[in-house]
């Protein structure tokens, strides 16, 4: 459904996205991870036809974002960062407005009703969007992006700033949509959310460092690195061979070593989390470049 082919975007001298290529299959929830400034939003903007790529192309819902950006726009849904809803419109009015931009007039009322029901917005349908809490705003934003039942949706940080319960509600909703065949590309920097994706891509300073299912990525990291727990007073910087990274984690330290390095006494090996895997792979990418 999404096929990214060597997409790049520069702003003056800054290379925001650098030759990114990957695929997202139909019905998949694809997580795009990366720190702030990694190029996630720029990449999403190119894939939604809002921003012209400097180089490369992508096919989204069967259309080229370079040659037919307007065709792409009609076939996708896009929830921008920080929940773009009109504060002085009610929940219902926000949905109806967005629906009217995609659908013929006759189909708008039914689409709005369906959307209110699916996203559980019926109880608050007449409230002004400005009076909604962050979680409800995000939910409305999500509902807006899908009010015209697109096959592909792009969700830019749909859970940033939300409490754990609200986050889970959003993800349940995303999975419910995916269950009905919607393809979703979601950006996030929460690792627990990334674990829930079918596949994830790690973006780091404009480059795609890794793509794969969470389990695959962990396996890949394990093939290259050892993940260890060390006591709090551990200081391996001077004498340890093959050190990739070390950082404080609670009352202990986490250590990443190259696979070929021996396990020092007092440290024991653990299963890496997705976060551990990403840190190790990112470090490697930084070293390589």
């Amino acid at each position: 459904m999404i096929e990214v082919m060597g997409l790049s975007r520069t702003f003056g001298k800054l290379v925001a996205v650098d030759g990114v290529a990957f695929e997202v299959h139909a019905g998949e929830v694809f997580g795009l991870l990366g720190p702030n400034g990694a190029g996630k939003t720029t990449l999403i903007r190119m894939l939604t036809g809002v921003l012209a790529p400097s180089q490369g192309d992508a096919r989204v819902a069967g259309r080229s974002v370079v040659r037919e950006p307007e065709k792409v726009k009609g076939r996708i849904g896009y929830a921008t960062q920080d929940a773009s809803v009109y504060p002085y419109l009610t929940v219902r009015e926000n949905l109806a407005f967005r629906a009217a931009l995609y659908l013929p007039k006759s189909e708008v009322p039914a689409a709005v009703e369906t959307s209110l029901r699916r996203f559980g917005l019926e109880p608050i349908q007449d409230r002004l969007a400005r009076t909604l809490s962050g979680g409800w705003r995000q939910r409305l934003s999500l509902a807006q992006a899908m009010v015209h039942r697109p096959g592909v949706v792009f969700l830019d940080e749909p859970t940033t700033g939300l409490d754990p319960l609200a986050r889970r509600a959003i993800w349940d909703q995303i999975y419910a949509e995916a269950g009905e065949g919607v393809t979703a590309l979601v950006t996030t920097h929460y690792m627990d959310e990334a674990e829930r994706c079918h596949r994830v891509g790690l973006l780091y300073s404009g480059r795609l460092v890794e793509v794969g299912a969470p389990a695959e990525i962990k396996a890949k990291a394990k093939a290259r690195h050892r993940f260890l727990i060390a006591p709090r007073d551990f200081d391996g910087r001077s004498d340890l061979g093959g050190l990739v990274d070390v950082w404080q984690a609670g009352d202990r330290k986490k250590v990443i070593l190259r696979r070929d390095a021996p396990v020092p006494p007092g440290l024991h090996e653990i299963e890496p989390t997705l976060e551990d895997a990403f840190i190790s792979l990112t470090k490697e990418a930084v070293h390589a470049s």
Partner: protein
Amino acid sequence: MRLDRTLALARKELIELRRDPLLLRIVILLPLAMLIIFGYAVNFTLSHIPMALLDLSQDRTSRELTKAFTSDDAFDILPVESRKALRAALDRDRARVGVVIPEGALAALRKGETLSLEVYVDGSSPVTAFQVQARLQRAIESFNARILTARALTGEIQKPPVVPKVEVLYNPDLDTAIFMVPGIVGLILTQIAVLLTAIAIVREKESGMLEALIATPVRPMEVVAGKTLPYLILGSIDAALVLWLGRVVFGVPMQGSWWLLSAFVFFFVLGSLGVGIVVSTTTRTQIQAVFGAMVYYLPAIFFSGLFFPIEGMPKILQALTYLVPLRYFLEAARGIMLKGAGLLDLWPSLLILVVFGLGTLTLAANRMSKRLV
């Protein structure tokens, strides 16, 4: 372009306007405040005032008088051949004042009779009219003083040789409000249209709504039309409000056609809205948009002839005023309301405003579309 999408955009804009207390206040209270503030105006020094002169004497005295008028660069003489031509010059704004020197000026002075000049002052602009009368009075007094000095040497004491009989046309009481109200309509329309549209679009940009909007299949022209429509309605309401108050409170007459005035309002607002959208495409924050709008409308107001008579400006700036749409709107509004000017007199101004309206909107749609790709 799809009509239902355009209407959905317009409806959304109207709902926001209705519910956003600040915007509503700007739309309703700003015009009222301006009407009260600018009901009065200031005085300015004029020179090179165009004067239509009908010289029925064609003798030495009339030539001396003409010279007195042109001294100090007070007046520029536009000679006319008949009373009809004189009136026409005033009607078409080619002259601010018309003077008739009656037959036999030289003979009258020789006989010691008082020579009475017919003077017609264009009162549609009181600021100008006051100036015109004052300068005319001065020119005649200096002429009289010279004659009297000569007479005194010969020992004759005389009544003033020349007196003007002044008739003020169009706005006989030289009422400032009557002159200002059509101007305030233009001023308010400029501000409301340029400022509010610019703010309305940049606000969407700031909140990320514009990105969401351009990610939909909506066409640039639909966005422009959807944004324009509500403010066109608001602008018309404001224009009607100010005109109605002008009539009730200040007694501003309506000599001409409401339809013609509405046509001018329509195209002027359309063009100003286009300017507002263009401003919004070049700015990122609401503060920038406010300043961007000011960069447009402050010079527009100064060069429109609203406060400062265009005749009083240096030639270069006078030429610049032809680029200011408000100038044409003002001339038309004053012409229609005070003089009863018709389409026959005003079609060039209307044509310019039609071009202004369609031109800026097209430019706006083009600038919009660049952001969309």
